[in-house]
């Protein structure tokens, strides 16, 4: 793993089936809108030794027409919405700030859990995104520092605390860098 600059990391890991699934999905998604991967997948990409069933992603808001084009594209590439099929309903869920999930083929696991950004904090995840260069393409992730802070101060489940511990130790993120997010999280109703 090589930190190239403040916004770029190169990782020479052998890609897992989960990584290949994510890379295939984001190649389609990035034709329509910027995205950032958040939460557990960020920890997994950098080696956390656990499994997951979903990969969380924030995207900028799409118009109805953009969503129509995107949905047609992913369906043509073998992805299927999990739980809800109607395009109308999916778009409505996204605009109501709910997440929608897409799996490959008939399998609901793994799935991409996609959400529109809803406030400044979500937008910050997009703005502070980092490029991760892998052997088979680039991924954009939210900054590990923000992810550690969110998991440690907001989500706080045992799984999140463990992900945070992994990332914080790996990237040697000082505690004071994490604590500086307290006020921001409070302002946007996360605390």
């Amino acid at each position, binding site marked *: *793993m090589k930190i190239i600059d403040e916004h770029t990391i190169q*990782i*020479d*890991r*052998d*890609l*897992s*089936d*989960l990584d290949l699934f994510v890379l295939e999905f984001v190649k389609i998604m990035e034709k329509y809108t910027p995205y950032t991967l958040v939460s557990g997948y960020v920890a*997994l990409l*950098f*080696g*956390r*030794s*656990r*499994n997951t*069933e979903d990969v969380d992603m924030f995207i900028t808001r799409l118009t109805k027409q953009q969503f129509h084009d995107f949905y047609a594209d992913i369906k043509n590439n073998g992805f299927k919405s999990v739980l809800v099929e109607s395009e109308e309903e999916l778009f409505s869920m996204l605009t109501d700030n709910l997440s929608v999930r897409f799996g490959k083929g008939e*399998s609901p*696991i*793994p799935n991409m859990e996609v959400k529109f950004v809803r406030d400044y904090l979500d937008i910050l995840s997009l703005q502070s995104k980092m490029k991760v260069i892998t052997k088979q393409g680039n991924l954009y992730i939210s900054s590990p520092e923000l992810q550690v802070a969110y998991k440690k101060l907001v989500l706080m489940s*045992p799984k999140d605390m*463990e992900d945070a*511990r*992994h990332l914080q*130790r*790996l990237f040697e993120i000082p505690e004071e860098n994490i604590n500086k997010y307290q006020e921001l999280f409070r302002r946007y109703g996360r605390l």
Partner: protein
Amino acid sequence: MEDFRATNQKQRDEFIDFWVDYVKTHSDEEWSRQQNMLINSGLKSARLSREEILKFRMTKA
């Protein structure tokens, strides 16, 4: 019960620290090969169809 949970979490945290140090001191290829065994097998099990699970159980029995 609290003691049991605390001890369990402490051991889990110790393993996380050990594993992070492993990731930092070994090549990406090396640690990812081990991590992929966990991730790929988990996904493979999740993708097994009902028929495949039944077939697998019958073979084992």
